């Protein structure tokens, strides 16, 4: 299988927790000497068995297996701490796995926080050579690509200026230009597009797409799901160190977006809240009342009942619903007119939420109870981030026969354009 450029075979990575540098040379020598004589380590905790020691370690990755072929643009998504960066660090040989094996064919260039190894006092050109060498290129190879790199970076007039005089945008442009033009077999990108202007970001994305189309592989980690969806043709989802899904980007993004309940009855009381929310006034249950499933037609209405308790009085409380689309970015917001709750009461409100204008697709709901401050801001009493999902089913007839593409058109369907007049020009 010559197409295979990367095989990750049952890889685990374990980190020791706690104070790592707290050991002294003397203690280490004593432990080592005791081990040498087959005695018990004088520095181990009394009665510490292997199971407990395991409690002091963190499994950053557990038995991860993954194959990457030429032409793959692979998105690695997962929440913070899921092990994405650890995986990339293993592939780029910054540290070793605890178990398992990684096999690589060809050259790996990593854009882990680009600009690595740039020296502020060297000129742009010198830094290109140095950066190229750090990424494994010979001087001649870098020289051969010099023109392309400078062109791509868009900073030609400043190429012989020390990079400490660069703006941070120029710095990033140069760094990306070097790494992207080294033609590696595997290009690793970790949150690289956080800086740089919009036009350059687009350029980087298309460059990364080219890399994949030229038959090389791209591994891309980002929380910016829009770019993930745009760039990648394959996605994996990491959850607490395990690879739980290996399939399409959409599937991985969906998992990342939250596994919120799809029930009609939702126990909001049990869900986590941000700090100090849900104390004075708290939502307890939400019950969807007008459908047997959670599917709605386009321009339909969702009805639900919300129950909660209040320990203080608030004459002008409102319910706000924020919707999140498939890319886990906010899609829309709507809220109720103010209503009154009194201290010590249990309340129940019935809500009708018109879904006019929402495009077909799956939506996550975030519910908040809040009041308006005199400054025109929101004063939150309670927030539930992931109160569940609902689906608006596709009906091309509503959209003049066109199927809706969320990726291209977004989550909001404006009213149709009005054709006011038409004439034939001579």
């Amino acid at each position, binding site marked *: 299988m010559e197409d295979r450029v990367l095989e990750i075979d049952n890889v685990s990575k374990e980190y020791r927790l706690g104070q790592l540098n707290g050991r002294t040379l003397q203690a280490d020598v004593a432990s080592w000497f005791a081990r040498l004589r087959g005695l018990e380590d004088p520095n181990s905790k009394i009665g510490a068995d292997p199971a407990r020691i395991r409690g002091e370690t963190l499994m950053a990755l557990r038995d991860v297996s993954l194959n990457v072929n030429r032409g793959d643009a692979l998105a690695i998504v997962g929440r913070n701490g899921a092990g994405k960066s650890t995986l990339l660090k293993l592939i780029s040989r910054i540290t070793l796995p605890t178990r398992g*094996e*990684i096999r*690589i064919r060809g050259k790996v260039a990593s854009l*882990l926080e680009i600009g690595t190894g740039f020296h502020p006092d060297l000129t742009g050109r*010198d830094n290109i050579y*140095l950066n190229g060498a750090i990424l494994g290129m010979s001087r001649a190879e870098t020289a051969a690509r010099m023109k392309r790199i400078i062109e791509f970076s868009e900073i030609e007039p400043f190429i012989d200026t020390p990079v400490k005089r660069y703006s941070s945008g120029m710095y990033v442009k140069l760094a990306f230009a070097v790494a992207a033009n080294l033609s590696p077999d595997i290009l690793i990108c970790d949150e690289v597009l956080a800086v740089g202007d919009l036009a350059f970001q687009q350029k980087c994305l298309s460059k990364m797409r080219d890399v994949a189309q030229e038959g090389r592989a791209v591994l891309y980690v980002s929380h910016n799901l829009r770019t993930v969806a745009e760039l990648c043709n394959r996605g994996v989802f990491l959850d607490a160190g395990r690879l739980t899904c290996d399939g399409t980007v959409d599937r991985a993004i969906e998992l990342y977006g939250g596994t919120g309940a799809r029930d009609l009855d939702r126990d909001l009381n049990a869900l986590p809240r941000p700090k100090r929310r849900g104390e004075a006034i708290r939502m307890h249950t939400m019950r969807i009342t007008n459908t047997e499933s959670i599917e709605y037609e386009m321009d339909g209405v969702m009805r639900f009942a919300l129950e909660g308790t209040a320990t203080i009085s608030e004459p002008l409380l409102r319910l706000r619903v924020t919707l999140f689309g498939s890319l886990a970015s906010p899609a829309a917001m709507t809220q109720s007119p103010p209503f009154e709750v009194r201290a010590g009461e249990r309340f129940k409100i019935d809500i009708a939420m018109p879904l006019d204008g929402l495009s077909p697709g799956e939506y996550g709901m975030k519910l908040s109870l809040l009041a308006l401050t005199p400054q025109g801001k929101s004063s939150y009493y309670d927030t539930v981030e992931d109160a569940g999902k609902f689906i608006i089913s596709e009906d091309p007839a509503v959209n003049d026969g066109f199927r809706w593409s969320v990726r291209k058109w977004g989550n909001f369907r404006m009213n149709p354009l009005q054709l006011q007049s038409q004439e034939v020009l001579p």
Partner: protein
Amino acid sequence: MHEDKHWDIVIRPRRRWLDIDIKGVYQYRDLIWLLVKRYFTLIYRQTVLGPLWVLLQPLLTTTIFTVVFGTIAGLPTDGMPKFLFYMAGSILWQFFSGCLTSTSNTFISNRNLFGKVYFPRLCMPISTVVSQLLNFLVQFAVFVGLVAVYALQPGTAVKPNGALITLTPLLLLQLALLGLGFGIIVSALTTRYRDLAMLVGFGTHLWMYFSPVTYSSSMVSQRFPQWARLYQLNPITPIIDLFRAAWLGAGSASARYMGISAGLTLLVLFLGVMLFSHTEKTFMDTV
């Protein structure tokens, strides 16, 4: 089971101690040169005298040694002109201690870089040693010039020994490898025991006084004969002795202790490279 030969890189949990990537270092030789170039571009930036410091440093040190140890303390210099005698000692010592101290913080001072991208970590200390060597060669050229001036004067005591002079490259190589070896041992250990970094400066300073830099080793064998043998086991001692014997014609060096010194050098270098290679693979987890 897959055969390794189909793969360019196979990453496994570390198992063996003797996993040394010499081939990798060779593949990255351009990086070593660029790092050397960077060192020289940067070290004298925004200084008034610039590269002149390469010469000023040893000349000033030598002058101080000449005044303090030669004139005030009146230590014997084997009948050699004091300035030349101390210059030989001080440029060699500075070369050695420069190699040692500037490689001893490889992991700590490069941890940001090492944490983001892989390349054979040995490139860093090697490039440092090459930079030190180039520095030394400039100083050495001045030294050779001074030797020539002294040797051409009538009735001079300076009589360079042509046969021994041919050994100079080997001596320098040995000194460089010794400094590199000790430096990378310290650098590997400091990833776990930071205290060592504090000790390095003090230790090398102390070491200098146990080496024939500010005095001649013949003085040791005359005044403290009971310690002479131990003194010669210091691997630096025979190197400096032989260097002085070659270029000034003063004193002598024993082939036996030279051999021991060479053996120690190889041992230290081997241990250093082994420890360094072992550390480089996972030190990011500990630093």
